């Protein structure tokens, strides 16, 4: 396989998702496609030649030369404030990828599928669900998605639509900080009880993908193993702030 070369992408669309998250739709000439769950590298270059590089998960299903990212603004970040506040349609962006071959799901891997996301950790899981829908896959799938509040839920309308399609996907939310009046979903952090209620029994040998901040991923992966899930069928990825544990 040849070197992953840097490419110049055109920013085709900038679409706010939540107060902190923006979808960037990119046209990438020569893009060879990607697998759902993979990420790519972005490189920003200042006038004085200073560069900053970061990795971002791809949110979109494979779709020719179009690639969508969903980027969360980190207030003390260096690249995400630029991507979410400065970048606009018509700008160009340097990138290379796709990268990563483990945190990947395609219908051929089968299921049943349990996806557990926290905050912007839902992004690579969304690529999997979009691909699942686009290919007409009937693999039974459940998404358990933790957010601070309903307003922080990324892709909310689309997830409602995907969950209502009666094609074997169910979506459950955990709102950890604030809940709207009459909220009947979970109102606490993801825990073992929730994983049992939403997830599959270990005996069904689900494929599990967990993505989010380190504390969530460590806790959820540990709880899944304690519930009897095969660690080799639990794939994890840390996402977002690379802060202290």
């Amino acid at each position, binding site marked *: 396989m040849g*070197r992953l070369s840097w490419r*110049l992408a055109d920013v085709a669309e900038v679409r706010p998702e939540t107060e902190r998250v923006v979808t960037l739709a990119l046209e990438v000439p020569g893009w060879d496609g990607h697998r759902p769950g993979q990420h790519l590298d972005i490189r*920003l270059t200042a006038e004085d030649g200073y560069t900053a590089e970061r990795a971002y998960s791809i949110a979109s299903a494979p779709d020719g030369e179009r690639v969508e990212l969903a980027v969360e603004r980190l207030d003390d970040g260096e690249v995400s404030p630029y991507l979410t506040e400065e970048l606009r349609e018509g700008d160009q962006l340097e990138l290379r990828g796709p990268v990563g071959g483990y945190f990947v799901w395609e219908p051929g891997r089968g299921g049943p599928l349990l996806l557990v996301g926290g905050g912007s950790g839902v992004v690579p899981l969304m690529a999997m669900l979009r691909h699942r829908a686009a290919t007409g896959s009937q693999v039974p799938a459940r998404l358990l998605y933790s957010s601070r509040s309903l307003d922080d839920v990324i892709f909310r309308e689309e997830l409602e639509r995907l969950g209502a399609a009666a094609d074997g996907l169910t979506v459950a939310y955990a709102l950890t900080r604030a809940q709207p009046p009459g909220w009947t979903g979970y109102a606490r952090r993801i825990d073992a009880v929730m994983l049992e209620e939403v997830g599959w029994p270990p005996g069904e040998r689900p494929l599990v993908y967990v993505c989010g901040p380190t504390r969530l991923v460590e806790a959820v992966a540990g709880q899944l193993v304690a519930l009897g899930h095969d660690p080799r069928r639990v794939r994890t990825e840390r996402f977002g702030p*690379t802060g202290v544990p």
Partner: protein
Amino acid sequence: MGGFVSRAFKGRRQPTAGQAAKLPPGQYAEPGFPVLTAGPTPRIDLADWRLKIEGLVAKPREWTWEEIHELPPASFEGDIHCVTRWSKLGTSFAGVSVDTLLDAVEPRPEASHVVAFCYGGYTTNLPLDDVRGGKAWVVWEHEGAPLPPEHGGPARLLVPHLYFWKSAKWVAGLRLLDHDAPGFWESLGYHNRGDPWREERYWGD
């Protein structure tokens, strides 16, 4: 890609001159210690913990937790570099030098590579010369405290001159071979050697 400038981008984290000299290309200085793992963190009872060296050695052997602590202690102070672009400058680890372990097992002359294998199933491959000559350790302390499980405790391999995925967490042993055998990330698109100063991140870099 010569000459491209990101419109209106101004760096916010320009490294100090002291940091800049220590940062390989494409890296930034990170004060924290991020956790990156492909699966659940294995929990290993110290009573069951073993470190094995096997393959092309004259005297294959394993050490218990107590036995490995009886070996001459060794420590590392310096910088580590993760392929995801953070570098942690001026950190420290303590354990035992891989040289000490290799001296005990007597590698055969034809041994040229090692595969580190781990609790949980992770593997990574290295040329034998990258783990001897004072370049690699098996460590169980980070900055004076026991190495936390999410960072590879009870013990991890430490090969700080290569990207940090080579410093395998939860290491269970080394297998010496007369050929190269790509490990987990090396089979999934990441560079076979992973020298941060040559920016060897991915296949073909």
